[in-house]
């Protein structure tokens, strides 16, 4: 189901069945869930009966069925929400149970079910190229993938907010805002509030590029390789900080482990080439590597002996094996950073 189809349903007040909200843009999930709540939950006094909210990685299908079959209290409809479920590893039995939920809702049309899933719960892919699990789920429920919006859409959305507040924006100002603040709609919404307050306080009617630069905070987006950069630079405190950022952003620790292993593996190759007498300028060509990347590797490789890199690579291999045997990969990475730091010089 496309976001536009959900919008049409809401406009026509024809919400019904089972929905799955997934994808990267949490702001839109919250927005559309709010719209559905406004439509169905008309009296907060009866929320205890008409608005059961569940949270958990494993869906309790029996509890869900109970909530669906209980009729609404003093209202035409009830809304059942489940957040935090992990859909990625669903088995055939879970898909069958989900199909049963859809049938139960069909028999109890006053009940509407909405599953809200974060990126840790499933990889939805993109609207153009949905993931396998999304495709399978979309065959059972009304699944909407809320992708990160494009620059065009974000600019139009920001403009609508600015106009709604009685202001306008000069050409390029809203694009500059996206460039500066990033693509998160949550961040952009709060930055827009700041701009509106500033403009009103100063009697301005037009948001300019200068206003954006003065008022909006710059946001570094998704520093996916900050940890490997810090390891390469021998910046251990920085590496721990970047690891914390990755954990906070719920990046899969195995992905982090893969990045670190790749870095060390590249450094072993560069270090060996340098030891064999390859000139620094010849490393990029010898490894078929980007010139800038090779330069950084050459700088870093000069700080350790090849056997030290080999020892670190052996530790990466051990970390990989231990993680696959069930050890916590995060602890493995923390230990690795400590070792790499202790082993930092000739």
């Amino acid at each position: 189901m496309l976001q536009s189809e959900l919008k049409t349903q809401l406009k026509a007040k024809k919400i019904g069945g089972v929905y799955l909200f997934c994808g990267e843009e949490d702001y839109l999930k919250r927005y559309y869930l709010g719209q559905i709540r406004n439509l169905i939950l008309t009296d907060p006094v009866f929320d205890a009966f008409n608005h059961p909210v569940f949270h958990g990685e494993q869906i309790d299908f029996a509890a869900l069925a109970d909530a669906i079959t209980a009729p609404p209290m003093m209202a035409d409809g009830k809304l059942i929400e489940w957040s935090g479920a992990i859909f990625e590893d669903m088995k055939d039995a879970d898909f069958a149970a989900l199909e049963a939920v859809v049938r139960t809702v069909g028999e109890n049309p006053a009940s509407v079910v909405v599953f809200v899933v974060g990126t840790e719960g499933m990889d939805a892919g993109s609207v153009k190229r949905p993931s396998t699990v999304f495709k399978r789920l979309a065959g059972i429920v009304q699944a909407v993938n809320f992708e990160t919006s494009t620059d065009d859409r974000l600019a139009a959305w920001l403009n609508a907010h600015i106009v709604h507040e009685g202001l306008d924006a000069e050409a390029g100002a809203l694009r500059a805002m996206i460039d500066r603040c990033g693509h998160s709609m949550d961040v952009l919404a709060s930055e827009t509030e700041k701009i509106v307050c500033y403009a009103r306080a100063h009697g301005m009617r037009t948001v300019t590029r200068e206003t954006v630069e003065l008022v909006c905070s710059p946001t570094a987006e998704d520093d996916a390789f900050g940890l490997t950069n810090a390891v390469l630079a021998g910046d251990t405190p920085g590496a721990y900080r970047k690891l914390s950022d990755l954990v906070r952003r719920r990046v899969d620790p195995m992905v982090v482990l893969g990045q670190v292993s790749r870095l060390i593996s590249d450094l072993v190759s560069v270090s060996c080439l340098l030891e064999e007498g390859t000139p620094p300028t010849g490393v990029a060509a010898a490894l078929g590597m980007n010139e800038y990347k090779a330069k950084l590797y050459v700088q870093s490789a000069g700080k350790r002996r090849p056997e030290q890199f080999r020892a670190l690579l052996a530790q990466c291999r051990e970390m990989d094996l231990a993680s696959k045997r069930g050890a916590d990969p995060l602890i493995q990475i923390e230990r690795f950073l400590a070792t790499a730091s202790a082993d930092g010089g000739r």
Partner: protein
Amino acid sequence: MERVQVRRVSVITPDAGEPETVAGEWEGALRTTPAELLLTFTEPVEGGKVFNRVIWRDGILTVDRRGAVSSRIVFRTGETVGVDLTIPPLSIPMTVTTEEVLLLPTPNGVGFRVLFSSVISGERRRTEMTVVATPV
């Protein structure tokens, strides 16, 4: 979208060094509207492929690259921007100053010319990049 042949020629001059010319040619697609031009093409690079998305709008050229090398550079005459050049597993900070960005009139297709200087890891280089898309 119209199928096009994309040719890019970059003359790169490091502060301390001789100019080097890097040229390439690939198939791509071009969409033209009264408000903007969108050019897309994929180029092979060391370690994989890069999907390029080039947008011209209001005198501003945005070059968005994704893949084995990722970056998003907004070329606006007279402006300096910070760019994250991502080459997994590293991201390399870069500063780009646009001296001039022009839409080139060509007989059949479209073209852009950008004069800019960039600083990576303390090394500065000046680049004259010309991109021309000709219908196939």
